[in-house]
């Protein structure tokens, strides 16, 4: 309960600061929309020349992309760990965080949240609605629960990978560019997994499981029975990967010595 009330207090503070700078907020909205538009235009133009991509239709691929945007938006809103090394380790902000009686990872998530990223999820839902109307997909009442479960699973997979990468900073304070690299790899999950070489397929399923953020769970809603097994595995992968990340984090915090004075 304590954590929940902390969460809402941070949220209220956040709203106040953000609404002070409305022009910046608008700029962020628009540039988010534009980066999604780049991918959409690519798909739309490509499907002007072909009707199938390895057996997947245009609307199915759009649906996968739309789905991907939702867990990705949740991840983007709460796990802004891009500059964790610089902000918390090099500048010594971590010392401040550790003196407080709330779990350090939870505090950092709240301090760095960017709720405006959630708008990307709305774009994703609109794309999914468009695609499912064209595919005339039918949904059951429990699909909404599945959707929430899959979105959380996907977001936790993302979070697990990026939190684990952030913990590297506890062991080595050198700057690394692994995070942007991982960001590039994560884009692979947006397309049907069967277009890749089987080594890449294996990596995207078990080692850096970004396929669980896009194509696997989306196949459930598309009625692709051959992928159902993987789809149902999404929340479990989320729990496993986020669990690993938290263990690594706690081990890292124990080792943390502080860089400041």
């Amino acid at each position, binding site marked *: 309960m304590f954590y929940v009330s902390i969460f809402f207090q941070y949220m209220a503070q956040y709203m106040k600061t953000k609404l002070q700078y409305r022009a910046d907020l608008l700029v962020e909205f*628009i540039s988010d929309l534009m980066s999604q538009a780049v991918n959409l235009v690519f798909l739309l133009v490509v499907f*002007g020349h072909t009707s199938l991509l390895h057996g997947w239709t245009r609307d199915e691929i759009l649906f996968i992309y739309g789905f991907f945007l939702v867990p990705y938006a949740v991840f983007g809103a709460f796990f802004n760990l891009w500059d964790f090394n610089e902000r918390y380790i090099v500048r010594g902000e971590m010392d401040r965080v550790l003196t407080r009686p709330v779990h350090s990872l939870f505090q950092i998530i709240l301090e760095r949240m960017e709720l405006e990223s959630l708008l990307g999820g709305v774009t994703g839902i609109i794309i999914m609605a468009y695609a499912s109307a064209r595919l005339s997909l039918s949904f059951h009442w429990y699909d909404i629960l599945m959707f929430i479960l899959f979105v959380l699973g996907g977001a936790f997979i993302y979070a697990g990978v990026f939190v684990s990468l952030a913990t590297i900073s506890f062991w080595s304070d050198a700057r690394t560019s692994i995070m942007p690299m991982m960001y590039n790899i994560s884009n692979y999950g947006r397309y049907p997994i069967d277009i890749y070489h089987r080594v890449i397929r294996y990596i995207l399923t078990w080692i850096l499981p970004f396929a669980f953020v896009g194509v696997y769970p989306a196949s459930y809603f598309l009625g692709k029975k051959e992928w159902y097994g993987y789809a149902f595995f999404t929340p479990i992968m989320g729990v496993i990967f986020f669990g690993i990340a938290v263990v690594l984090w706690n081990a890292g915090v124990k080792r943390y010595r502080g860089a400041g004075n």
Partner: protein
Amino acid sequence: MDKYIEMIRIRFLMMLAYRTNYYTGILIYAINIAAYYFLWSAIYGSKSTMQGMSMAQMTTYVAISWMARAFYFNNIDREIAMEIKEGRVATELIRPYSYLGMKTMQGLGEGIFRLLFLSLPGIFLVALFLPLRFPTDVHTWMFFTLSIALSFIINSELNLLAGIIAFFTLNNEGLLRAKRFVIDLFSGLILPISFYPDWAQEAMKYFPFQGISYIPSMIVTGSFQGQAILHGLLFQLVWCVLLLIPIQLLWRAAKKQLVIQGG
């Protein structure tokens, strides 16, 4: 002239000091190239050519456009905006060189560095895994070299323009981001211009963006032949000159109404 060459040299040495950052850069580019390679092979499926390009040409196109990007890409727009924000531009302006020229030279130093330490090893790495096909005749390479130099000029001119606008708006973060997406989409980096619908291709003829990536990549893959190469180079050359006009006009206006915030 000497001082500008010195600028290139200093920026090059500065980048050299942080060269370890570029090992991951090579991997990032390789990952992107591989992703697009798989995507395009799925798109081609059993088709042997699309829009006059074979799959082998498309693979080379993708690899070359990413590696060329390492050369022409620079952040001088961001640097200018930052110097204006922090007021450092005041000291820059009283120094005995052209501010914009100096910025361009710094961009060139960076570009040459990335060409040697990112593009060249990167293309070797990619060639180990993907079936790249390069032209064998010297002329194509000469045209490509010329074309890529013009790409650098066009891209830098657009960056200067975007940077100068910060003199008027003080915070132009949104504009800089929008410019990046427009260039990603319409330069031909992620998609050859010939794939766009006709009306879009027609419209893009009136913008400089395809001079940044599409034209050099089409030359090196052999998709442009004879007349088309000369046309492409002429297109780039014309834009190189045309873009100087708004830069000069805005720059003159900018200096007049410059406000230093602190400093």
